[in-house]
């Protein structure tokens, strides 16, 4: 197996509220290898984005990492000082946000934002940084980059802006990119282009990608492996092809049963009755048990730990050797 870039171990994120801490992420573990794209999928509120924010050290108050560790190439980064973590951001971990229309500072020229990022993380001179910025814009497929570099964000279309955002994320050649719903706000026709671009660049640079999305179509298109999240926990993680073709966790089964085509979002989860619990009311045992068609008594008491099933790891009592034997 290739080199592990990111390793998340039992990550727990809590939000402190007046009524005590709420656990948004509960003992989540996964790895991402060099050049690999890990899709993280789940409903709104499943904790996908919070996981991404935790990895890059940008959880907003009152949230905090309450347990577990995050390792980047084997070094812990979850306990770094704010200044040390800042140096990791942009330099070693890049990030792409959902909405390209609001990700760029409207008052600064596109080129200045790239140059600023480059000069923060490298010792390029102003002139060299500008040349590099033009190269980056060319690389993400912006036509006439030597001219567009002096444009303001509002002069770019949504898809073009997302390309600029990708150029910014890649500027300092990070080892890992966290892409949080990078295509959700885009037109369907542009979505595919952006996904193709992201895939190509990561292959070329050997960058690992954590691709957060609620869209199984995007996952099927882009990811190598996929982690299915539910109520702040990983329900199932495994190679995309096998998870899609043969999901194991009952939630994943429901989710895959409702895979839309790339252009279609409607009635995605209509096959699973009920809705995901709020953070304040996560049931005991398996978080999915009230909605699970195959629920049995143990599910209501004991939280299932991930166990290897085929090529995947599944957090479900159904696949426990003891239950199977029974």
């Amino acid at each position, binding site marked *: 197996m290739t080199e592990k870039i990111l390793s998340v171990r039992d990550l727990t994120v809590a939000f402190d509220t007046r009524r005590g801490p709420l656990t948004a992420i509960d003992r989540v573990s996964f790895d991402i290898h060099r050049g690999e794209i890990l899709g993280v999928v789940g409903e709104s509120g499943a904790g996908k984005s919070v996981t991404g924010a935790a990895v*890059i050290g*940008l959880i907003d108050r009152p949230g905090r990492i309450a347990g577990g560790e995050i390792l980047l190439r084997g070094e812990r980064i979850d306990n770094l000082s704010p200044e040390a973590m*800042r*140096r*990791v*951001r*942009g*330099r070693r971990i*890049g*990030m792409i*946000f*959902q*909405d390209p229309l*609001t*990700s*760029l*500072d*409207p*008052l*600064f020229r596109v080129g200045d934002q790239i140059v*600023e*990022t480059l000069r*923060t*993380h490298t010792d390029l001179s102003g002139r060299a940084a500008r040349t590099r910025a033009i190269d980056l814009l060319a690389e993400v497929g912006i036509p006439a980059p030597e*001219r567009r570099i*002096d*444009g*303001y964000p*509002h*002069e770019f279309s949504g898809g073009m802006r997302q390309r600029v*955002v990708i150029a*910014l*994320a890649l*500027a*300092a050649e990070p080892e890992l990119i966290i892409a949080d719903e990078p295509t959700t706000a885009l037109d369907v026709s542009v979505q595919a282009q952006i996904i193709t671009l992201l895939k190509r660049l990561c292959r070329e640079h050997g960058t690992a990608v954590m691709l957060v999305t609620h869209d199984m179509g995007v996952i099927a298109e882009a990811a190598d492996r996929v982690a299915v999240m539910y109520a702040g926990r990983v329900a199932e993680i495994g190679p995309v092809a096998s998870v899609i073709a043969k999901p194991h966790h009952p939630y994943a089964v429901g989710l895959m049963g409702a895979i839309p085509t790339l252009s279609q979002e409607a009635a995605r989860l209509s096959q699973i009755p009920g809705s995901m619990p709020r953070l304040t009311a996560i049931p005991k045992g398996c978080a999915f048990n009230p909605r699970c068609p195959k629920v049995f008594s143990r599910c209501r008491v004991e939280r299932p730990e991930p166990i290897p099933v085929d090529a995947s790891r599944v957090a479900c009592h159904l696949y426990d050797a003891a239950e199977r034997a029974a």
Partner: protein
Amino acid sequence: MLAFLLRRVIQAAAVLAVVGLIAFAMFRFAGDPVNQIVGPDTTVAERAQIRTDLGLDDPVLVQFARYAGNVVRGRFGISYQFRQPVSQLLAERMPATLELAFCATIFALVVGILMGVYCALFRDSWLAGLFQAVSLIGISLPTFLIGILLIYLFSVTLGWLPSYGRGDTVRLGWWTTGFLTASGLKALILPSVTLGLFQMTLIMRLVRAEMLEVLRTDYIRFARARGLTTRAVHLRHALKNTLVPVITIAGLQLGSVIAFSIITETVFQWPGMGLLFVQAVQNVDIPIMSAYLLLVALIFVTINLVVDILYTVVDPRLRLSTGRAA
């Protein structure tokens, strides 16, 4: 953008026309102008003659046209109290008011922005709490009370600063300035603080609220995710975006400094236009009142126009894109 500015100029002219109409109505109908000119022993025939000479029997429209023509040439009539041309009286006092308003504006902007930024960035610190409390008092207390308080503290008790007047002034052509003498500068401090305090608190609250808003935007999150230094995120990106909307509102507020100086000038017996206006109201000196109203309207309208232009300079989105972009 040209169309936008043209529309603004037309609006400004309309405002001036309305105020001119009101000023004329005051001038013509509030009290009988003849009474102000003649003595008690004038005969009815003489009064009628004066009426005709003054053109008071002409159609109102003709009178308004005549009034407007005079105003444009700087003829505002003769003051009832001083028996001097109003334009001359105003010109003598204008430097005092403008210098005071200028200092108050600088004070309000510099201190207001600094305190607002501090309160937004360190919102939980005790100093921010103190600033908030001070701003509540500054916004609640009437200007004249603050002036009296400052006089009691710094003039009566400590004896540091003068309590009234402009100190020594230097004559530069028709302009008199207090900027060139030590006593003139000292005399400016208390009135400027008094006049600027209300605007300062407004600007502080505005900057704080706006900056908190900006700090939550995606592009600030993205700037953090790019690993920019806290300094660059806060003072380059957040501050610039904060100040764009603040400019408009602050500009409008600062326009009112001129009018608010009525109160401050009375408290400090500052020999400016505001004091002249208050004396005119007390003594029913209509020509001065209407001229002052027109002058303030003119200043307001000019400031608004300047603010509009400034706004387009600062915000690239409003600038005319000159062929560079698509």
